[in-house]
C-alpha cells in the first residue's frame, strides 16, 4: 500500500494510491490521504489506476475527502485509467454520478480544474 503525490502546478495536485484499498490498506493511508487532499491551494486528482482492490472502506475515504474539498470550494476527481476492477466497484455504488471519474489523465486534470 502506498500513497504519493505530485504538485502538477500551483493549482493542481495528483495523489497516486497503489495497492489494496481494503480495510487494512485504507487504515494505512487514511491520515496521509486526508492531509494531502486538504490543500486549499490545489484541486485534486486521485489516481486509482494502480489500485488492485477497492472496498467500501476505501470508497468511504474518497467520499470524505471529496466532500471536504468541495466544502473548501475546491474539487476532487478520480482517475482510474483502464482499471476495470476499480471502475466496476465505483459503478456499482453510483459514485461516478457524484464524484467525477475519468479514464484519461489529461481529462481528469481538466475536470479537476473546471
Amino acid at each position, binding site marked *: 500500500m502506498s500513497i504519493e503525490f505530485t504538485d502538477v502546478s500551483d493549482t493542481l495536485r495528483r495523489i497516486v494510491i497503489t495497492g489494496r484499498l481494503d480495510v487494512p490498506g485504507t487504515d494505512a493511508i487514511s491520515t496521509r490521504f486526508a492531509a494531502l487532499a486538504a490543500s486549499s491551494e490545489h484541486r485534486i486528482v486521485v489516481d486509482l489506476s494502480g489500485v488492485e482492490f477497492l*472496498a467500501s472502506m476505501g470508497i468511504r475515504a474518497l467520499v470524505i475527502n471529496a466532500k471536504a474539498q468541495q466544502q473548501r470550494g475546491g474539487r476532487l476527481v478520480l482517475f482510474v485509467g483502464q482499471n476495470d476492477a476499480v471502475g466496476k466497484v465505483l459503478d456499482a455504488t453510483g459514485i461516478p454520478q457524484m464524484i467525477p471519474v475519468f479514464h484519461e489523465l489529461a481529462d481528469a486534470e481538466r475536470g479537476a480544474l473546471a
Partner: protein
Amino acid sequence: MNWPTPSVARSPDDDTLVLDALGAAMADATRWLHARSAAQAVPADAVTRLDQCLDEALANIAAHGGSSALPVTLNFTVNAIGSRCEAALVISDHGAAFDPLAITPRPQAGSLEALQPGGLGITLMRHFADRLHYRRAHPCNHLTVVVAWAETA
C-alpha cells in the same frame, strides 16, 4: 504478491480458516481465499467477487460485533453441476445476531453534498454475489456468499 506470515489465523483443514482477530489480520483471510481459489481453479473474476464480499463481510463484523464476535470462521467449498460451478464462502462469527441482508441499502444520493460516507458494503455484496444467505444458529451468525460461473472447455 507477497503476503505476511499468518499470526492470528488457524486452519483446522485446508478449506477452513479461523480468525482470532480482525483489522490488519484480514490480510490473512484474503491470502487464504486466494490460495483456496487457486487450488480449486476458480476463475479470476469469481475470485475478485468473492474477495469483495469477504472484505465487506469482515468489515461489517468488525464494525457491529467487535471483539465479542471472535473467533470468525471461514469455510470455502466449490461444487459443479454440469458446466455450472459455484463457490460458497460461509462466514461465521460469535457476535450478537446481525442479519446484514435485512438492512435496506441506502438510496443513492443525488449529489456529493447529499452523499453520506459509508454504508456501501451491503450494496457491494448484493452486487457481486450471485446469492447471499443468512442464518442464526449455535449461537452464531452464518453468512453464505455464493459466486457462480460457467466452466469453459
